[in-house]
Every structure is written in structure tokens, then in C-alpha cells.
């Protein structure tokens, strides 16, 4: 069987709820895509060229967000496929699963080295939604190849547990040294986000997304599929993307690419299916 376009599986664990729009964004980036059930046959799963774990509340966030799903048989399969170099992106709850499975940061492979802890926000608790600005710190991963290092990218977050933390002494510093910190929260002018709400959850050193050492597995809290088209961008957003939305006067412009689409284009670029910077 010849495959002209790489096929991506968006995994559906019970309780996830972003499968369909994530699939749409992957297709928009020029890839084939199916939603794949958590209880589906692993021999079919290995046929896919890459994987996206979408957002939601897998297994109701029982115990900790992502922890039950990370024990599913299908994740063992994913682990092996990532070892073979296939790209895997985890978004929000998907990121929580990748951390719980020890696939990222993956320095000590298979070991849970980091957690995504409950948001810390002044005068608030619980779930928090906001359009954040992200700085692309590493533009070489399967989720950021279509950006340039230093790009400021607005993408929304929506979660209750998204604060990157680690109990391992020196691990965070090591991640920065290894270029495994992929995205950090920043201000619209790229200044480091030191405070809420620019850093929306109190994440250590404003980390929004990390990768494994090879850069083919990325766990990110922001939702690029909610920023895949211009119409999704808020008109009152700071910076050039807000201005672009306000200036859009016809459907063609509104349905043009949004700031988050290059995350999925990066996935395509990983196979050479879309040019860098698409």
C-alpha cells in the first residue's frame, strides 16, 4: 500500500472532548487524519505515521489528570512508536498523559519526571481559560518546526492543572540546557511572563510546552486547534493577530490560517508534507 499523504491518528480516550476540532486542524495542515479509539487494535495503530493526543478529561481526571489513560495498553504502543522516531504531540490533557507516561521529558525514559500541577492563580481556583502569548524557544520539534525561534504566538489555554513542576533537583535547568523547553508564556512583546495572567497557571519558569530530548514528542498545554483559523482569534487580543482579526472583512480572510496552525503544519513538515514556515 502506497501512502502519498502521511496519516495521523488523533487518539480518543474516554472523556476527551477535543478530538473533532483537532482532527480538523490536522487536516487543515495537509495531513490525513482519523480519530482512533482507545480500545482499538494496536496492530492498526502502528500503521499510522504520527499521533496527536487531544484535550479533554480522560477518565474524568480520576487520581490525577492523565494518570489513568497513561496506563492504557494503547499508550505502551505509543511509547514504542515514539521510540522509533514517529512524532507525537500531546495537547492539554494529551500533554498530561505524555508526562504521566514518562514520554516527556524522557531524559530518564519511561519515568515520571514532571507533573502538571493545579493552577496557582491569585483570587481564583479551578479551570481557567485565556488567550496566552507564547514564545517559541525551540523551533526544531515536531510541533514547532514551522515557527522561527523567538516568534510570539497567541494560543489559548483552558485547564485546571497545567503548571509544569518537577521534584527532581536541577531538572528544569537541564531542560533549558537541552533545548527541551519548546514554548514559554510571554507578554505580547515577548517579555518573559513572570506574573498572572500572562503566566496563566503559575508554571515554573513560564513553561508552556516541553519535548523529549529528540524533539519528536511534545507536550503542550495551549490548544493550537483553537487558533487554527483567523476567525477563532479574539478581536480584542493584543498584538498583530488581534489587529488582523479586526481588519478581516470577508470570509476568505476570516477562514485564513490562524496563529496555531503552524503547530500542525510542523507535524506535516516532519514528513516533508508541508514546507517549513507554512
Amino acid at each position: 500500500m502506497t501512502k502519498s499523504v502521511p496519516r495521523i491518528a488523533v487518539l480518543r480516550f474516554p472523556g476527551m472532548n477535543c478530538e473533532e476540532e483537532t482532527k480538523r486542524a490536522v487536516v487543515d495542515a495537509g495531513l490525513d487524519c482519523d480519530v482512533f479509539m482507545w480500545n482499538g487494535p494496536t496492530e492498526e495503530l502502528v500503521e499510522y505515521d504520527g499521533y496527536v493526543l487531544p484535550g479533554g478529561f480522560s477518565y474524568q481526571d480520576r487520581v490525577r489528570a492523565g494518570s489513568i489513560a497513561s496506563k492504557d495498553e494503547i499508550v505502551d504502543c505509543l511509547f514504542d512508536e515514539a521510540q522509533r522516531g514517529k512524532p507525537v504531540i500531546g495537547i492539554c490533557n494529551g500533554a498530561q498523559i505524555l508526562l504521566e507516561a514518562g514520554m516527556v521529558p524522557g531524559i530518564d525514559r519511561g519515568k515520571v519526571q514532571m507533573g502538571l500541577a493545579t493552577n496557582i492563580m491569585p483570587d481564583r481556583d479551578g479551570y481557567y481559560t485565556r488567550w496566552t502569548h507564547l514564545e517559541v524557544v525551540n523551533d526544531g520539534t515536531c510541533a514547532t518546526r514551522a515557527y522561527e525561534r523567538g516568534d510570539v504566538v497567541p494560543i489559548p489555554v483552558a485547564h485546571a492543572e497545567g503548571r509544569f513542576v518537577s521534584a527532581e533537583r536541577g531538572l528544569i535547568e537541564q531542560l533549558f540546557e537541552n533545548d527541551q523547553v519548546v514554548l514559554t508564556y510571554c507578554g505580547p512583546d515577548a517579555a518573559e511572563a513572570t506574573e498572572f495572567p500572562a503566566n496563566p497557571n503559575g508554571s515554573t519558569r513560564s513553561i508552556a510546552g516541553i519535548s523529549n530530548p529528540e524533539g519528536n514528542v511534545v507536550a503542550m498545554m495551549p490548544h493550537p486547534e483553537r487558533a487554527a483559523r483567523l476567525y477563532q482569534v479574539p478581536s480584542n487580543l493584543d498584538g498583530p493577530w488581534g489587529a488582523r482579526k479586526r481588519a478581516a472583512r470577508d470570509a476568505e480572510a476570516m477562514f485564513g490560517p490562524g496563529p496555531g496552525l503552524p503547530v500542525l503544519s510542523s507535524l506535516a513538515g516532519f514528513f516533508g508534507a508541508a514546507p517549513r514556515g507554512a
Partner: protein
Amino acid sequence: MTPTAVPSTRTIGIFHTTDMELEQRLAEAGLNFSLSEARKVATILGRDPTVVEAHIFNTMWSEHCSYKSSRGVLKEHLPTDASHVVLGPGEDAGIVRLCEIDGKSYCVAVAHESHNHPSQIVPNEGAATGIGGIVRDVYCMGADVIGVMDPLRFGDPNGPNAERTREIVHGVVEGIWQYGDALGVPNLGGDVYFDRSYDDNCLVNVVAIGLVEESEIKRSRVPEEARDVPYDVILVGKPTDPSGFGGATFASRILDEEKTLSDKYAVQVPDPFLKRMLTVATFRVLDLVRERGVAIGFKDLGAGGIACATSELGAAAGLGIRVDLSRVPVAEPDMSPEVIACSETQERYALVVPRDFTPEVLRIFNEEFELPALCHGAQAAVIGEVIEEPRYVLEHEGETVCDASTEAITTGISYVRDANERERGGDEPEVPEDMGLVAAVLGVLGSPNVASREHVYRHYDGEVKGNAVVRPGEADAGVIAPIPGEKVGVAVAADGNPFLGALDPYQAGAAAVAEAVRNVCATGAVPIALTDCLNFGNPEIPEVFHDFVEAVRGIGDAARGIGMKDSDEPIPVVSGNVSFYNQSAAGNAILPSPIVCCIGRLDDLSRHTTIGFRNEGNAIYLLGRRTGELGGSEFMRTVLGAIGVSPATVRIADERAMAAAVTDLAERGLTRACHDISDGGLAAAIAEMILLTAPDVEIGARVDLAAMASAGAAGGEGTVGVQEACRLLFCESGGYVLEIAASDEAAALAVFEERSVWFRRVGETTGELGIVLASAEGGDVEVPFDAMARAWSGGATEVML
């Protein structure tokens, strides 16, 4: 205490019973319908009812299920039909046509309900199951839920009940996000008001909006095919437990502090995780139904549980249903048949499908989606069948525990209630001559009823599904792109100012329609449907019932009078709900609270408009004459400390003309920014147009008080005194503020003329943040931006902490 088991063989002796004995019997059995209602049951059946039958009638005849007080009034006053209506009120959701693309007719399904009583008792679960219930009403039409909204009314956060009120606020908001965010339905907004009348009865209204192709609409009825081939009744979802037993009757009486503990068991338990899986699996079933061309019936289980849902499925088709309650998957052993039949356990649906299709349905739910593995006891199970004779038969452990005609069970009862107008009167305070305008503007902006709702909506996921175009805080209504890849947009808003209800329920009803319509039009969308949720006290009190009738009359008049754009048809009221008994045992009744939701259509969503000013040097236009009426206004209440007497009257014909003009402007791309005038009046509207810009857009406004007041459109002369300025700035009569670019002014004026709207050019946008009020007596008045921002962003946040 959970309800006690009663042997199924028992009947309730009604014939040959004295009133006193009967009263005692009903109380012992936990039945709270009246003696005359109980006797009517016996008369209809021609014998004493079984305990199960008595409970079924008790539920079906509750105010909540039967609309026994309200039905006649609703029928008399509300327009429910128009040429694009597919399904009016009567089933779980109303449906209107939205657009046609490639030969497919896309429709919007909408349902609107209250979950007030449960939310007062257990705020988190009450609000969560409110969302859970309303989305089922839309899903069961075969529609996918594309948005929810929640209009909320809470007690006084600084009043005598402050502590409990703040707990309720926190619990309700948490319940809404915990359920809605996990289920994956975008929250598109709503509104929030605080008033002491809600201290003992908060209001949690919920709206769900769905998208469905017209050919794929599922009905809550057994299909005609069931006359020829055998049909099964399948129950799917959570195992039935005693939770929510008596929920409908609980919602149909006043709340009593003493009974709070036992009432907790009348509140259902939410499970958004199971609901999510149930929903995904259900759409898998519906896909297969479409593929195979099978006819099915589909209904959610809400008030009255299995009994209500399955009897209505049969009755709608004139067919009968036989259910064996022993086959219902249950969560606890030894549940009595009346509890199995009437409990309101969440996350359940009933399907009627041809028997040869049954195995496919069971396989999808139980094997493909592994419901039993995901949630203890959850599954799809056959519990009964369709029968030809129109009878509703329930069996339990080999005994027949209910056998009545489906019509008798589902027809319901009605009452004609007495209505007396309330005594009104009192004085309206004058605006003091030494009123400080800046302090008044800041006072209004900082009122919890006007200030930013950011603290609430930041907890809600408005972007799941990837369809969000306009979020809360960007425009007067939420806007989504409901059909992936298509440019058609849907706008939704919900409104209802309770302070108008306090002064004039007719105006409150009409104003709720007018404001919801304005909010939708302010985004450029054309209204296509309305829903209403009517929240009132005890309808047995003639003054309360009069309030209710007046509010419904107001809604009807406004829906007809504003009407569909460029058409003689009304904006149809396609769905709704009545919530009575929002009154505590201590006698505290809520303000009459009609709440209306409006759905609008944007043919091209790229033409939507938002609130924040865009550029400096643009013209600011006012649509809608400031009438000077201040009764019930935020200014009157917050600044003058009184509610007043005479609220702004809804000018229905003006609203119709303005709606047409504003949507024309948007369609032609002539609007830079648009905001409707409501709470806080013109002052709050202009302030918000400055406050809701992007942080890197620094635009202020210079507006001329004399121009607002002038007799001619050409502009004003002279200066305006502070009393008159307050009447101009804070009057809440309907209107819009528009930002129009200089190059578009001539075209905009042509639209104003063509649509015959009252308008004034009242000022310009400037590069200086803040508002300058020109032509004030004694010189220009500056309202500084920082003070506005502080008041507005902190006003409601404080009460959330």
C-alpha cells in the same frame, strides 16, 4: 433519607376515604398532590391507583411537568409559529431552519430551562445537573450541542445572607464549569444579576443550542413503523438509583429551610464523564440509523424519569408501552417499583428501535464504547416494548404495577388561577442638583450588576469544538461558526432585567425580548428565534399570577411587534419553561424574572461586529432617543438608593426599526463597533466600548450632551445641566451606540433614513483614553480611564471572592 420501599401490591385507598384520612395517606406515601387531584386520579382510573400509578400522576401533574397553571396563558399570548419553524414548543427543544447549503437544510435546536431549586440547596450539583439536563433536551432531537448559556440571579452579596449567597455564587459557577467544560460544550455567555430578593431562591437558568440537519431530526415519539414491526424500548446510561426521586414535585413547591436536608435527595447527581461517552456513542448509533434508514424514537430522561419519558414516547404516537421494571439496570438492590419508575437519575436516554436493530444498539453502547467498564453499572438494556393498544403498562417482578391509558397519564391537568394587580405607588427621587457626574458614572460602572463578568466567564470553556468567533467580553452576544468550514454564523444572547420586573412585569417581559434582540443585532446577526424561562413565586397568590400573565403578555407583544426582519412574521418563541414557587417558606419571593434568549443568524460571519472602539477620529452615533425614564435603572438604585416608579417603556416599533438598521449596517460593512444600551444606560455603553478594546488600542470618546438632547439631528446647542445629563446618560431605554468611520457616514445616514430610526451624531472617538462629556454646564467633564477601569473590572470580582 432515601425514599422507603413500599410493597408494589399496595394501592392508595382513595374511594370511600375522608379528606383527613386521605391527606394522611398521601403524606405517608410521599405524595404531594392535592386531595382533589388524588380523587381525580381515582375517577380517571375508575379504581384506587396503585402506589406506582399514584407516583406517576403525582409527577406528571406537578407544575413542573404539567404547566397546569401556565399553559393557557402561554398559549394565549406567545407567538410560536413562523415559516422557518420546524418544531415549536412541546417537545424537548424547539427547532428553526438556519440555512441551506448544498441542498442540506441546517437547523438550530434550542431548549431553555431552570434549575433553581436544586441550585439553592446544593449549588454545585444543582447547577451542573442543570447543564446536564438541558443538553440532553437538545441531543435527543438528534442535534449536536454547539453552545450553552446560563443566566444567573443571586442574592445580595453584601446583604444579611451574604455568606450563603457567596457560597452559592461559587458553587453554581463551579458546577457549571465542572460539568460543561468536561462534557465539551462551549459556554457562550449568559448574564448575572444580584438582588436581595434572590437570597432564598437563586435562579440558575440554562440554555442549550444545537445544530441538526432537518432530515436527521429525531422525535420524542414511537415511529409509525412500530405499527407493523416489533419495537423495543431501550434504556441507556447510568444505572437507575433513587437520586432525584420527587425532583419534579420538589421544583413545584416553595423551599422550606426545615426540609433542606431531605430535599437534597431530590437533587440528581451529575456525571459529565459518562455523559460525554454516552453522547459520542449516541452519535455513533445515530450515524448507523442514518446509514440503515431505520426509524427510531429518542427521548431524554428528565423530570419523572422512565415513567414520564416512555409514556410520552407512546402517547405521541397513539401507541402503548409495556416496561418491565425488573429489567431496568439499578444501582441498589431492593428499589421499589415507584422509585425505579420515577427517579430522576441523570445521564439516561430512552430509545425505541426496531427489534432487529436492537443488537446493534446494544453492541455500540456496551461493547464498542464499553459503557459498563467506564462507569459502574452503566449500560444499554432492553426494558420493554411498544404495544398496539394505547396503554401504559409497568410490570415488576411478575406483577402489573401500572395499567392505564397513555392518554390519561400524559394529558395532564390545568387550572385557571386568579390574577390581581399589585398595589403600586411611591415616589421617585429627583436627581440632586449637586450630583457629581463622574462619581455617578463610576458608581454605575462599579455596580455588581454592570461591572465586568470576567471573573465568571474565565472559568467557562467557550472555545471547545473550535467554533468560537466572538467570546463573552467581546460583543453583546456570543457568535459561533456552527458548521465547520462554512461562513454562516449563529449569535446568542440571554437577558432579563429583574428590576423592571419589580416595577412593571409587562415591561420586564417586553424589555427582556427587546434587550436579547438588541444584543444579537449588535453583533450584526438577524434574530430568528426566541426562548423564554419564566421565573416567579407562588402562582396560587393572585398578585404573583398577575405578574406572570403580564410578563408573558409583554414577551408576546414584543416578539410580534419587533418581528422577523423585513417580514410580517413574529420572532417565534420556540421553546421555554415556567418556574413557579421561587419563594421561601419565610415568604420571600423573587422579583418577577422573565428571562429571554434570542438566537440570530449571520449570513456571513466575517461581517460580525464587536463592542470595542476601533480607531480614533470616527463618528459616534446614538440610535434610540433617551427618554429620561430612570425607574429601576442602575443609576436610580446604585446612586440614588431607590428603585423608583416608572421604568423605561419599551418602544416596540422603534426597536424593530433599529434592529433592521443596525443589521443593515453590519451587513454592508459600515459598522466599526456597536454596543446596545441597557444596564447603566448610554454612559455604561460608551465606557464599555473603551474598556473592551484590545489592550494595545488606546481609544477614548468625546461625546456632546447637547447633541444627545437636541431636537434636531443636526446637533445641539447650549449646555446641559447635571440633572438632565443624568437622565440622558443613565436612562436605560433601548438603543445602540455605533462607531462609524468618516468615509462611511453618508452611507450610514442613508440607512438611518431608510429605516426611519431616531439617531444623533453625539461625538467622536479620540486618541485619549477616557470619556469627555462636552456641553456640560460649567465646562467639559472628564471621566478618567483608570478610575473607570478600576470600578468596572473590580465591581463584580469582589463579590466572587
